[in-house]
C-alpha cells in the first residue's frame, strides 16, 4: 500500500473577482522509503497539494491518505507521524535555534527534557552549533532554512513533506541541504518534496510527478521522463552569428525536429534520434560549409525539455 495517497483532489480558491482551481483531479501514490518530487512552475498546485496532505487545508473533493490514515477524517493522527517544512522558513525570530526546536518537540509531546535533548542533537546534526544560543533574527536565510528543516525532523517522521526546500537559497546552501535530504532518505524516510528546479528533482527524487494546472500530467523516474521525449540533442555554438542561418539549414538536414536558435544567434540545438552518428555528419557538413565552431556536442534531454514537450511552455518562464 502506498504510504502517501491522493485521489481526485480538487481545491478551488475563490476571491471576489475570480476563481482559481489550484487542484483539479490531483492523484498521487508514493511508496514507503521513496522520494517523490512534485515538479512544476509557480501556481501549478504543488503547495496546495502539500497543504492538503499536511492537514493545513481541506480539499473540496477527493481523498488524501498518509500511512493509510484519512487526512480529512483524522488530521491529528496524521500530524503525529509527519514532519513538514514549508516554503518560507517558519521559525520564530525571537527564539534561539535551540528554543525553536525545543518548542516543536514539546508540541509533539516529547516532554520537556526529551525535547531539549533532541533539539541539541539536531543543532549538532545540522551544523548550527554557533546559532543554537542566539535569536534567529541574526541568521542568514540558509541557516533559517536549516532550522526549519530540523523542526520537521524533531520526531523521526514516517513521512517528510518539503515544500520548495531550497527556494531562495544560495547555491552552496542548496547543495548542503541536498546532502542532508539524501542522508535522511538513506535512513529510510519517505519524502515528498516540491520544487521548481528541474535539477533538484533530478538530484533528489526517485520518482517525479510533473504538475501543471492542478493535476499530474506525467510521472516516472527522471530517466523515464527523459526517455519519453526520446533521443539526444545536438548542441553547437558558432564563432560568428552571421553563420546562423546557414548552420540552421545544416542541422535541420541532420536532425529529427525543429532547430532552436538562441537569442545571440550563436547557440543552436536540434533533437536527433541517435547522437553520435548525427553529430558526426553534421560536423562534416558544417566544416565543408566553412562554418567555424566554438563548441559542439551531444546532450541528453533535461527535465526542462520534458516540461516543454509535455506542456508547451518552459517550466521557469511559466506565469503564476
Amino acid at each position, binding site marked *: 500500500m502506498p504510504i502517501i495517497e491522493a485521489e481526485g483532489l480538487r481545491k478551488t480558491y475563490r476571491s471576489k473577482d475570480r476563481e482559481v482551481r489550484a487542484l483539479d483531479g490531483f492523484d498521487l501514490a508514493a511508496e514507503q522509503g521513496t522520494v517523490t518530487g512534485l515538479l512544476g512552475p509557480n501556481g501549478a498546485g504543488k503547495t496546495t497539494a502539500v*497543504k492538503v496532505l*499536511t*492537514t*493545513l*487545508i481541506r480539499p473540496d473533493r477527493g481523498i488524501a491518505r498518509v500511512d493509510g490514515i484519512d487526512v480529512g477524517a483524522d488530521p*491529528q493522527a496524521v*500530524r*503525529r507521524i*509527519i514532519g*513538514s517544512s*514549508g*516554503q*518560507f*522558513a*517558519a*521559525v*520564530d*525570530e*525571537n*527564539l534561539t535555534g535551540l*528554543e525553536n526546536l525545543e*518548542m*516543536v518537540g*514539546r*508540541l*509533539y*509531546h516529547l516532554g520537556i527534557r526529551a525535547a531539549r535533548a533532541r533539539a541539541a542533537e539536531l543543532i549538532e546534526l545540522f551544523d548550527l552549533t554557533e546559532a543554537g544560543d542566539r*535569536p534567529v533574527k541574526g541568521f542568514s536565510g540558509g541557516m533559517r532554512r536549516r532550522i*526549519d528543516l530540523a*523542526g520537521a525532523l524533531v520526531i523521526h517522521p514516517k513521512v517528510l513533506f518539503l515544500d520548495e526546500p531550497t527556494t531562495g537559497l544560495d547555491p552552496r546552501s542548496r547543495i548542503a541541504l541536498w546532502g542532508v535530504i539524501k542522508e535522511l532518505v538513506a535512513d529510510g524516510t519517505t519524502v515528498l518534496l516540491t520544487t521548481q528546479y528541474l535539477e533538484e528533482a533530478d538530484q533528489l527524487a526517485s520518482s517525479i510527478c510533473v504538475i501543471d494546472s492542478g493535476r499530474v500530467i506525467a510521472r516516472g523516474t527522471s530517466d523515464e521522463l527523459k526517455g519519453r521525449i526520446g533521443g539526444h540533442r545536438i548542441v553547437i555554438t558558432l564563432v560568428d552569428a552571421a553563420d546562423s542561418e546557414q548552420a540552421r539549414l545544416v542541422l535541420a538536414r541532420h536532425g529529427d525536429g525543429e532547430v532552436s536558435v538562441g537569442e545571440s544567434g550563436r547557440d543552436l540545438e536540434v533533437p536527433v534520434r541517435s547522437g553520435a552518428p548525427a553529430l558526426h555528419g553534421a560536423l562534416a557538413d558544417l566544416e565543408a560549409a566553412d562554418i567555424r565552431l566554438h563548441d559542439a556536442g551531444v546532450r541528453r534531454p533535461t527535465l526542462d525539455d520534458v516540461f516543454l514537450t509535455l506542456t508547451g511552455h518552459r517550466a521557469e518562464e511559466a506565469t503564476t
Partner: protein
Amino acid sequence: MTSTWLADGWTVTWRNMLKFRRSPDYVVFAVLQPIMFVLLFSQVYGGSIRVDGTNYTDYLMAGIFGQTVLFGATFSGFGMAQDLKDGIIDRFRTLPMSPSAVLVGRTNADLALNTISMVIMILTGLVVGWRFRGTVVEFLGGVALLLLFSYSFSWVMALLGMLVRSPEVINNAAFMVLFPLTFISNAFVQTQNLPGPLEAFANWNPVSALVQAARELFGNVGDAPVPDVFPMQHSVAMVVVGSALLLVVFVPLAVARYSRTTGR
C-alpha cells in the same frame, strides 16, 4: 487530545513570553508607557481638572488602567496576525497539538504582560499620590476586574487578528477605534461636562462602564452623581457579565477560525 491543551497552551505561553523579553517594543509598552501616562496625566492635568469630591489623580487612575488594559488586549490581535504572516501558524497547525493551544498561549502571555503593566501603574500611581479609598479586597477586586476584561477582549482581538491578517492594520485600527473610545468616556473627564451627544455616547460606552467599575472598587468616584444609565448604575455586574459573554462567544469562534486558517 483535549488533555493536552493545558500543556500545549503553556508551551506556547512560554514561547510568547520569551518573545516579550527579547523585543524592546513590549518592554516599552509594558513598563515605560504606563509610567509615562500616569505621570503626564496626573502632573499636567492634575492641577487644571476639577473633580467633585476627590482629587484628579485619584479620579484619573481608573481611567488610565482602563485605557491600558484595553490597548493591551490588542496585542493578541497583533500577535496572531504576525504569527500568520511569519508562517508560524502553519508550523503549529501541522503539529499534533491542541487546536486551542495557540490562542490559549497568546491570550495567557498577553494577560501576563498586562498584569505587569498593572503592577507598574499601581506603583507609579502610589508614588504620585494616588490612594485607593476602599478595602484591600475591593482594590484587588478592581484589579481582577480590569484584567478579566482585558483577557476577554484579548480573544476578540485574536479573532480579528486572524481575520485581518495584517499586524499593521490591527495596530492602526486599534488606534483609530480605541483611542476615541477611551477619550469619549469617563476615563479622563466627568461625562456630565461633555456636550450633549458626546455625553450620551460616553455614558453608554462600555469603556465608561469598565472605568466606572474600577473607580467604584478603588473608592475613587467622588461626589458627582453616577449617570442615570443602566451600565453605569450597575458597572461592576456589567463588566463581569460582559466579559463572560465575550468569552462565551469569542473563544469558540476564535478556535474555529484558527482551525481553518493558513498563512500566505
